[in-house]
């Protein structure tokens, strides 16, 4: 079968991108290979691990379970968009750093994207709610405790921010 291609236009971290993609290209691979945004990690490609989580029109989704062509006309945010232009970490990244919320870092982009959206929706979560919100992101290193601590701290910082 001849590869079938589509022209797509989408916004990624506020920048408009135009590309031509094969229908079967996964959104995760498009971000990593076509756009060079390799911060979005790929662990399982069947929705189980959460490493590939990005924001699609503001909502966390698995980028390994969407096609790049489906992103036509939509707004995406990836981990590359979190820190400020001057390199200043987003409060949620700073909290992960401060609380030792990562070791190898493979799961981290997915956790950051899941939790930036979650803390907007629920700015004052309980520990239990944080654990529930993290349930779709596997981490093989940290045992989660430091991630939970980081998220509770980040929530506090974000609440205090103007």
């Amino acid at each position: 079968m001849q590869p079938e291609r589509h022209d797509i236009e989408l916004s990624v971290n506020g920048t408009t991108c135009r590309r031509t993609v094969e229908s079967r290209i996964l959104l995760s691979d498009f971000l990593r290979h076509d756009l060079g945004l390799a911060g979005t990690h790929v662990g399982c490609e069947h929705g189980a691990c959460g490493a590939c989580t990005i924001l699609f029109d503001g909502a966390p989704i698995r980028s390994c379970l969407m096609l790049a062509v489906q992103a036509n006309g939509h707004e995406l945010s990836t981990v590359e968009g979190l820190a400020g232009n001057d390199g200043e970490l987003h409060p949620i990244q700073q909290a992960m750093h401060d609380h030792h919320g990562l070791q190898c870092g493979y799961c981290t982009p997915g956790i950051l994207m899941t939790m930036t959206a979650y803390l907007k929706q629920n700015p004052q979560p309980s520990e239990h709610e944080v654990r529930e919100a993290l349930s779709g992101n596997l981490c093989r290193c940290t045992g989660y405790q430091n991630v939970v601590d980081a998220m509770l701290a980040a929530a506090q910082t974000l609440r205090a921010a103007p």
Partner: protein
Amino acid sequence: MKPAPFRYIAASSVDHALALKAEHGDEARFLAGGQSLIPAMNFRLARPSVLIDINGLGELAGVERSESGEIRIGALTRYHSLERDSRFLTDCPLFADALPHIAHPQIRNRGTIGGNLSHADPASELPAIAVGMQARMRIRSAIGEREVPASEFFQGLLTTDIQNDEMLVEIAFPPPTGRTGACFMEVARRRGDFALAGVAAIVTIDAEGRCSQLRLALCGVGDRAVDASAAAASLIGQPCAGEVIETVAAEVQGMIDPPGNVHASPDYQRHIAGVLAQRAISAAFSRAGHAA
């Protein structure tokens, strides 16, 4: 892994999608939330040659109520929007219990009720709820529309009554009635995993607080959702308490033939199905009392 090559077509209307499906038959698949189809394609367990993307068809999404109070959910309605619809969750409390068990928040942002029911995974919560609530499935093709009761819709492992040229467009749930309580419970290995066994119970009580009707449906214990309402015959006319519930649970255990899987032996599945049936019936009964 990556999907095999295919043609991608974004449908511009339901009619367009149905015309494409009529043209391409079983070579084509509808792409709804993609949360079952894309993983299957990534692993090359599914190799459709045409994908008809229905995500742009807003007319397929949303919850409506008919004059008779029937609750009609469009096939493309995502779990996420049902989770936030408090009126819907009040009317269909089984969903309030079950939705948090379905996968993870990121997957619930995409997955659709129509995709779930069309996929017909026997371990999924929703087919059991559809059977328990006696939902009716509205199925459309380019040449017409028909309605099928949930009891006839599910025909086996990942198999439904949807024909090659058809789409599931809407799921209709009967109107809520007073003096009814419902409860869904499941056991899964980890949060978000498919259920090892799950039970949906709907109890209706009479003016004296005795059980006048009980609907019971199970997931994860057969090749499709199991309607176990017949097991509850001994409860009718009784208060839902004590030994009589144990009898029902034993009946349920006798009715099912769980397949077993890597996480659970058939005996374990049968055991938890009985325990969950007892607990779900008791909880539904007490909720019915509060509703009265």
